[in-house]
C-alpha cells in the first residue's frame, strides 16, 4: 500500500467512525482535538486502526502519535 493509499484509507475510516468531514483532517492537526477524543474514545481509535490495517498500536506508541501526519508515518512503517 502506498502512503497516499494509506492516507486515503485512514482518513475515510476516521471520518466515518468519528463523524467529521475529511477536510478537517489536516496532516499537522492534533488528532485528539480534531476528533474530540477523550481517554475512552482513544480505545476506539486503536480498534479502528487494528481492524483496517491489522496493526495494534501499543499504549507507549500511541502517546507519541499526536498528529495525523505522525499516524500516517506510523502506519507506513507498520501496516501489514
Amino acid at each position, binding site marked *: 500500500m502506498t502512503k497516499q493509499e494509506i492516507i486515503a484509507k485512514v482518513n475515510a475510516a476516521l471520518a466515518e467512525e468519528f463523524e467529521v468531514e475529511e477536510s478537517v483532517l489536516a496532516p499537522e492537526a492534533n488528532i485528539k482535538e480534531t476528533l*474530540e477524543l477523550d481517554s475512552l474514545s482513544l*480505545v476506539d481509535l486503536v*480498534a479502528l486502526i*487494528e481492524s483496517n490495517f491489522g496493526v*495494534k498500536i501499543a499504549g507507549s506508541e500511541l502517546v507519541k502519535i499526536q498528529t495525523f501526519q505522525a499516524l500516517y508515518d506510523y502506519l507506513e512503517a507498520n501496516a501489514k
Partner: protein
Amino acid sequence: MNRVVITGMGIWSCLGTTLDEVRDSLYNGKSGIIFDQARKDMGFRSALTGVVPIPNLKGELARSQRVYMPEQAQYAYCSTRDALKDAGLDADFIAANEVGLIFGNDSSAVPVVKAVDTMREKKDTTLCGSGAIFQSMNSTVTMNLDCIFKLKGMNMTVSAACASGSHAIGLGALLIQNGLQDIVVCGGAQEINPFAVGSFDGISAFSTREDAPEKASRPFDRDRDGLIPSGGAATIVIESYESAVRRGAHIYGEILGYGFSGNGDHISSPNVDGPKRSLEMALRRAGVSIDEIGYINAHATSTHVGDTNEAKAIYAVVGDRKIEVTSTKSQTGHEMWMAGASEVIYSMLMMKNDFIAGNLNFENPDEDSAKLLIPAHRIEKKFDTFLSNSFGFGGTNSTLIVKNL
C-alpha cells in the same frame, strides 16, 4: 404520604412509536408479531417475534453519546424523550430540580456476544472498543439516560425479570410517596434480537405457530402453546400531586397502589399464592375494594401454566364479579423487561379513550379462564380504575392500580 400521579408517557412499541399510533393499534386489534427468518436460520424452534423500528439517532445524539447505547437504550431514549416532552419537563427544569430515574432492564446480550467474540478472535481486550462495557451492563439504560438527560435524582435499574418495568414504577412511586423525590422517570426497556432470547427459545417457552404469526399469541385460550418475545421501551413520568399542580402539568391519572410478592417456589413455573398476594397487597395499599376496579390488564403471556395460575389468582380475588380481564400481550407478544411499564400505558390509553382492546385469539376458554370475563373483541366501556399485573422468573410479582384523573 404524598399522592403519586402520572404526568408524561412515551412509547417505542411494536404497536407504534407515538401514543396516538398505539391507541389506534389497540383499538383496531393490530398484531405486532412477525416471522423472522434469521432466527430460523440460527436454529430457533420458533422464529416469531415482535418488531420495532430501529431509531436513527445520528444527528440527534453525538457519537460520544450513541457509542455507549445498545438497542434497548436507544428505544428507551426515544420513549423518554417523548415522555419528558409530554410531561413538560425541559432541560432548564431538570437542571434546577432533582429528577429521579428508575428503569427495568434485565439483559444486554448483543454487546456481550460481540465483546466475547472479539476477545476470542483477537486475544486483545482493547479491541472490544470503548462502548462494550457500558452497553453490556444491566444498568445500561439508566446510565445512558441519566447522562443524556442530565438527571440528578435517584439513578438505578431494576432487574426483576418480566416484572422489571412494573417494579420500576412501583419503587418510583414509593420514593415519591415518602417525600424522597418529587419526580421520577420510570419505565422498562427490552432488546429485540436473537441472541437475547435464543436460550429462552431453547426451553420450549415460545409458540411455534409460525404459519400464522398474528394468531400465535393467545393468552388464556385453551390452545395456547407459548409466548412470543417482543420488546421496545416505555417511559412514564410520575410525580407528586403537589409538584404536578405547582407546575401546571397535565395529569393522566394517579397511582393508587403498588403490591408485590415473591413466590418462594419454582424458578420458571409461577404459582397461585404469590400473584394473589401481590394483587391483595396492591388493593390494600390503594385503599380500594375490588369492586372499584374497572379493568384488569393481566400478565398472561400465552403459556399454559402461567396463564392458568394467573387466572386462578385473579379469580381468587375477583370471584364472580364481572370485571373485564385481557392481556395486551395478545397484540404485542411478551415485552418482558418493558412489559410492566408499557402495559400501564396501554391500559391508560384505553381508559382515556373508553375502550378495552380485545384479547386476541381467545377462541376457547380452558377450565380456569372460563371463570373470568375475557372479551375476545374490543368493547366500548368507560372505566376509571385499572389494575395491571406483571410476574417474572424466580417468582417476582408486581401489581399496580391506577385511577383516572
